[in-house]
């Protein structure tokens, strides 16, 4: 049974094998990068509210830290498997590498379900997790962050425990912290802005004036809201966004040919990102079915909602003028759709590059913490722009030079950099 089921780590390895083949990596490098450098498994005894002690299983995987301290989230999940965590750690290595930040890849967590735990018990797990691994993580070793079912609160407990053990202030041990206790400004904007920095550079390379473009955005969450905002500031015309409607249990596309105003829409949006249809109509928006975003007659498509949105079926409906796709979401495009996009010669900025603004801002949080000096929001965003632009230019240069599809170019550049670092260090 288990053989037939989806194994994320196997998939990550296959993906790596393909790129390694194209890069012509030597066997030792392949063997090193196919697997994590280190895996820690440990037990965390926690005194529960009723006085009993329960032992939880914790772990941390450091896939590769040749380019810098490992970076990656901590997940609280009842059915976590080490294969999933290994896969996610691997992807973190590539993601940090593609944006060229000096970090490696890691992932970790605890097998537990916060639904069956009180806050105090969760705090016990967080502190217990740190106690078991306090000497194997740290600002210069491995820097965790929030992930599935963990939040800024968990990160603060962990940071606090780490600081007690090491007798000092080390806010750079962990990121994703709330403002005021080592968090960075600009985190909310980072992913959406990063998407548009990539879009701006891609259009510039294609010789298209961003001011004369129109773009369709799927989603109206954190990423989409800020992407639309910055795109407008650059003079582009966002013609639609889409969102999930909780009451109808389906999504809708909100179209305004003269330009979507995110501030106007936010006033009629509930806290889950659902836009009020009636009020939107009154404000001059056309309310269409959820998948209508992809059919708009625009130059740029920004899928920034969910995975598997641009499929063989929906890609066929893309407008004839589409020239660029920037993937704001994780994995929005299926392999079948990739084929169509390649055939039509549409330029693609792949997800792990386009939405790397988030991890870049985490890196900035770590940097600011390590020097205990915090930048203004403008400083953070300006540095983000520099970093993302630079990363994009390098990937696109490679793609141009080697006539590669951008997704392949991005993976190649990411893996190449990690392989280089390993080589320089004399590991392989």
């Amino acid at each position, binding site marked *: 049974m288990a053989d037939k089921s989806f194994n994320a780590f196997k998939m990550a390895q296959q993906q790596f094998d393909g790129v390694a083949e194209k890069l012509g990596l030597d066997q030792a490098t392949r063997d090193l990068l196919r697997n994590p450098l280190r895996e820690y498994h440990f037990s965390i005894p926690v005194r529960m509210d009723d006085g009993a002690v329960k032992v939880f299983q914790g772990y941390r995987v450091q896939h590769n830290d040749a380019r810098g301290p490992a970076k990656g989230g901590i997940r609280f999940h009842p059915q976590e498997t080490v294969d999933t965590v290994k896969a996610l750690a691997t992807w973190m290595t590539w993601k940090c590498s593609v944006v060229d930040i000096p970090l490696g890849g890691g992932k970790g967590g605890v097998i537990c379900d916060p639904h069956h735990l009180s806050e105090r018990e969760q705090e016990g797990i967080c502190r217990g997790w740190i106690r078991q691994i306090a000497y194997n993580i740290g600002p210069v070793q491995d820097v965790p962050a929030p992930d599935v079912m963990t*939040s800024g609160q968990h990160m603060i407990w962990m940071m606090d425990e780490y600081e007690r053990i090491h007798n000092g202030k080390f806010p750079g041990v962990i990121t994703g912290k709330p403002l005021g206790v080592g968090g960075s400004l600009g985190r909310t904007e980072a992913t959406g802005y990063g998407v548009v920095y990539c879009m701006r550079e891609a259009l510039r390379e294609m010789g298209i004036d961003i001011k004369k473009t129109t773009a369709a955005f799927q989603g109206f969450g954190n990423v989409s809201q800020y992407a639309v905002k910055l795109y407008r500031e650059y003079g582009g015309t966002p013609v639609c966004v889409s969102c999930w409607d909780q009451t109808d249990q389906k999504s809708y596309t909100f179209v305004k040919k003269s330009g979507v105003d995110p501030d106007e829409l936010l006033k009629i949006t509930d806290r889950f990102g659902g836009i009020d249809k009636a009020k939107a109509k009154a404000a001059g928006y056309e309310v269409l079915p959820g998948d209508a975003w992809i059919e708009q007659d625009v130059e740029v498509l920004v899928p920034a909602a969910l995975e598997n949105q641009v499929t063989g079926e929906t890609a066929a409906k893309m407008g004839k003028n589409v020239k660029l796709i920037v993937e704001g979401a994780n994995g929005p495009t299926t392999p079948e759709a990739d084929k169509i996009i390649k055939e039509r010669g549409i330029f693609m900025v792949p997800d792990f590059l386009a939405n790397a603004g988030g991890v870049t801002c985490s890196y900035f949080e770590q940097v600011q913490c390590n020097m205990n000096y915090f930048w203004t929001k403008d400083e953070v965003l300006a540095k983000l722009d520099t970093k993302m632009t630079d990363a994009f230019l390098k990937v696109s240069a490679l793609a141009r030079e080697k006539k590669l599809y951008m997704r392949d170019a991005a993976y190649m550049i990411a893996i190449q950099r990690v392989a280089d670092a390993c080589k320089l260090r004399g590991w392989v």
Partner: protein
Amino acid sequence: MPQNKPEWQVIVDLLRDTNPALLNRIGRKMMNYLFKRNVRQVESLMKRLDASSTDWEYSENQPIPKLNLSLLEEIVDEAFRIAAREIRDDEITAMVTQWLKQEQFRFLTMAAEKRDVPLAEITESVHRFARMPEIARKLSPEERTLVRAALIRRFFSDDLHYINVIKNYATVEDFSAMLSRTVGPPQGNGKLGGKAAGLFRAEKILMAAKKDYVSLRNLAVPKTWFITSDGILDFLHFNALEEMPSIKYRDPAEIRQEFPFLEQVFKNSSLSPEMIAGLSLALDDFGDRPLIVRSSSLLEDTLGAAFAGKYKSLFVANQGTKRERLEALADAIAEVYASVFGPDPIEYRRERGLLDFNEEMGILIQEVVGRRCGKYFLPAYAGVAFSFNEFRWSPRIKRTDGIIRLVAGMGTRAVDRVGDDYPVLVSPGQPGLRVNASPDEVLRYSQHNVDVINLETRRFETMTAEQLVAEVGPELPALSQIVSIYRDGELRSPTSNLIDLAGGVPVVTFAKLLAHGPFIPQIRDMLKILQQALGWPVDIEFACDGDIHKLYLLQCRPQSQAGGRASVEIPANTAEADRLFSANRFITNAVVRGIEYVVYVDPDGYDALPTMDDLAQVGRIVGELNSKLPRQKFILMGPGRWGSRGDIKLGVRVGYSDINNTAMLIEVAKKKKDYVPELSFGTHFFQDLVEADIKYLPLYPDEPGVVFREEFFSQTPNQLRRILPGARNFENVVRVIHVPKAVEDATMAVYMDGEREQALAVLERE
């Protein structure tokens, strides 16, 4: 004869001439007194009263002989002679004086003991007693019990259990206080009804426990006026509507059709002048505080028939001129009266065989607990608590710890299930274990709307929590105890009363109140004490006006199990071939019968699906089946935790609207290699299940002693293709079993006995 007669002698002589009957009673008391003081001679005196000791030929089967009056007098005289010899004069005088004083209360015992004594008369007697100086109000223990029991019977209930419990707590003074706030036909003999009885009983029990429990020190009951249950008869009579009660025997459809009209007839009728006068007094007492008019019928809130939500409870803003306020109050009362003849309560009575009972409707007029904030009036928080938890969202929660449904503002949102809004659910035994864990879940499954009384429009209104906080702000009572602020994906409870709302959204979480406040001990102790005193699980309603140390008890009644089912009996002797599955963990009381369709998601088939999209498709197919299959006639069964928004591998991804027509959701935890997956319990949309009353059952098919006829679910012909032709590719995963087709004319039933932790699904034939 001595020169100076002692004082008692003067009294006795006087009584002999003026009131021999009274002297007889005093004499009897003297004999008892002497007997208690071990004065031997009195024994022979008592023997003379005992017929069996005489020379009369006597047998048990014939009437005992009657003594003549002169003999009685002789015995009484003799008793006093013995007393004079054996005890001091001043002692005798003191005793006789005390007995004479007690004799003054005969009016009270007599009034209380008499059946059907009019309200005016008994009120007068009780007040007369209460007005006496305290020192004079010393009843003998037996008389005290007699009066208490009689008053309880008169105003509350003939139920022996009720009388037995409460007679140890309630005093005549309590009744006096209550009767001074009671309105009713003066010559009538109505009671105060079930809700009043329940509240009175709970109040007395809890007040008595105050000295032992710090948590209850500031417990209170809001000021309440009562209308006796025959008020409705007076109303019907005054408006010539006497034929109304016969309506209950009519055809249910007819009742339903006619009720809106009838309700208007009631609202356009008037209360009698006596009632109006009484209500006017009540309004003077209440001032312009908002009021709630609660039904308190004779049948309501009795064990096994809670009538929860069947009769109306109405809020009145109680603003404006006295005349306006009186009119609004009378209108609300008429509407509550009309609800006696509503289709739902009549149907409820029919189902329980209570239709022939002459239902009468008492009414409670209660001050609404709360305070004015801007133009609104609302409590800081309110809710209901049950001593028995039918909705455990985690296996760590004990059923007997009870459950609280807590809301900000008026408690109406906790009492009723509103479907798209969520009260905070807390187990008083494990207050840290909340239903929702991540900030996103808390945000989604939090209370979005708040019920308030708008004092300007004089209406009961619902507004969003955000709107209320924006409009009223920090003035809201106990705000920092109630909300957390959601900002940048983080949810934080305020550290102090300085709440910074900028850029954040206030979310009702009660984080601070539940973690540190006195609230949890208040509720926990109340539930415990009441359940102990009464001997059954209780259901209470409470509110807090903003002072978190003070809690108001609004109502208390026996807890009715979900669906009014107190306990479930699993049918014995079912044929083995008819048993489909059984379960023995985390069972709640419920019975689901007449199941025609089973939608079974095959755990192995689900596990083998290759892509995320395929997995998601299963959820969509379930959603389509939900809209195609007959409502409440099908159940859903499948692996792992349903409704998971996180990892889709954990279970079928469905939303509430994908399952809202199902009667039941069964999560199957089939062993995978070496571990058993955890089930959802509280996670994700568990609260949706609770609010929609969809039954939930976890199955552990690999546990010893558990029945799981897997082949029935995996081999019976699949109807999926017939119902959803487009879903044929998923026939190995989603199986739709049409039970009557699979097993001739059978339907499936699931019996769940929470007390014994047993559940059984069987095939049943008509």
